């Protein structure tokens, strides 16, 4: 393993290529340098040391890289991810994997608010808890949370799947469209137009598929309940014209 030292500011992106085992130490490398180097890489594995809660780590990746952030990350970690696999060994703050398009982001600790907000594709795995508004406006990605999720999870979510092995906070799935939500524990309350729906064979298969994808063990697909849209809010119906 080699340690990359880069001079802060305005240096050209380090031409990493396939930098297997390359480590960046953020006590010596700026976040901009890190992101520039990662975005220049086409494959390989990378480790980020001493992240110390810095924002915007490993953002905008667009290649099948393996990136491990060894510690806690700040806001928008692995945002806009495509193709890359990003693992954070600690916690993340607001907006991890926001607008992810593909690839995989895994948090071994807890995720802050709005995890995978507006994400179109890929998989977010949170081994700990995820805070409020997890999967807000989700547009097609999958989310597996092994712990609990905070309030307003799945708010306005349109597509994709959210699987929660623990409990869900208040107003789960408020005003959601076609995201499917599975919760193993308790649900504090359901949001507007979110209802519980029967778990059929295809849903059991879907739950198992998500558990397998996340590598979550010790949990049975039969323990989950399904929640989805009653579809009463988002269809315009002529008979409501008179109603205020």
């Amino acid at each position, binding site marked *: 393993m080699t340690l990359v030292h880069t001079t802060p500011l305005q240096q050209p992106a380090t031409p990493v290529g396939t930098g297997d085992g390359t480590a960046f130490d953020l006590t010596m490398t700026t976040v901009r340098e890190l992101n520039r180097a990662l975005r220049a890489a086409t494959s390989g594995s990378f480790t980020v040391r001493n992240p*110390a*809660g*810095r*924002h915007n780590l490993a953002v905008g990746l667009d290649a099948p890289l393996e990136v491990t952030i060894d*510690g*806690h990350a*700040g*806001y928008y970690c692995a945002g806009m991810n495509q193709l890359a696999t990003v693992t954070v060994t*600690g*916690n993340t*703050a*607001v907006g991890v994997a926001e607008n992810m398009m593909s690839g995989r982001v895994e948090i071994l*600790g*807890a995720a*802050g*608010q709005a995890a995978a907000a507006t994400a179109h594709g890929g998989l977010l795995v949170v081994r700990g*808890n995820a*805070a*409020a508004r997890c999967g807000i406006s989700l547009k097609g990605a999958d989310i597996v949370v092994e712990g609990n999720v*905070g*309030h*307003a999870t799945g708010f306005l979510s349109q597509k994709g799947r959210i699987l929660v092995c623990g409990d869900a906070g208040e107003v789960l799935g408020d005003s959601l469209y076609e995201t499917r939500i599975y919760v193993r524990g308790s649900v504090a309350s359901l949001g507007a137009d979110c209802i519980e729906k029967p778990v059929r064979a295809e849903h059991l298969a879907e739950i198992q598929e998500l558990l397998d994808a996340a590598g979550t063990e010790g949990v049975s697909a039969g323990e989950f309940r399904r929640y989805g849209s009653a579809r009463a809010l988002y269809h315009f119906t002529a008979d409501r014209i008179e109603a205020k």
Partner: protein
Amino acid sequence: MCGIAGLFAKTPAFEAALGDHLAGMIDQLVDRGPDSAGVAIYGDPVPEGSAKVSVLDPAGPRDWLAVADALSLLGSAEVMRALGDQAVLVVAADPEHVRAWLAEHEPGLVLLSAGRSIETFKRAGLAVGPGGLIDACGLRGMSGGHAIAHTRMATESRVTTEHSHPFSTGPDLCLVHNGSLSNHNRLRRTLRQRGVSFATDNDSEVAAGYLTWRFREGDDLDAALAAAERDLDGFFTFAIGTHDGFAVVRDPIGCKPAVLAETDDWVAMASEFRAIATLPGAEHAEIWEPEPGRIYRWFREPAIVL
């Protein structure tokens, strides 16, 4: 935006270096609040019957020995720290008597805080660098049991030292706020009718005044914060310094960020983890995001989480 921090020492060694650790946290929060900064640090309690008062002269540097001389009519008074336009005075008198005397005889002075252990310092401008709050008040050399701090990015009302946080809410009580309140004008009018005075048109000062009023009405901290959750309309994370610890509460929908962390040596709260990452042992701390609408509190011993 704004940045807020709270730090609570669990060991004598950490108490001795509290100011230095807090300065490191503030350094990381300056990005969230470049307009001004302030700290309230709790330590060296004066004997019962005496008052430690932090005062600011918005007009500029002041002869604080002369002010102490005049105050000695109430009881022996001395200057504990003199920092140009700010000072910490110790007076052998009831804090409320000192407050009343200052209001009558020194109406130009702003009482930043009063109590037995609280010391408050504020300064417009960046907290770091020459002339910044950290250097100006000698924060890195201070010890204490606990402290709260604020870096301000003004979204309403002027950028001045007196508009800076923390705001005093009573004896040994103060508040820092990240967020914005939408009903502060009406609430300020109501509170003035009930005898609460305000030095500025700042919304966070109204939150502090609201708590002052609730405490006067006999509420304890929990009851006052529960009432605040009901009556304050807006977004907030509050950190409240008390004589024996600090409390953290977020608005019911958790609009504003907060991270809590605890080790055997300290408890810390900050708007962002990067401020906590500066503390020794942060990599092994228990770290979590406080739930909206829930009150978290730490007292001297034992640590209590409500």
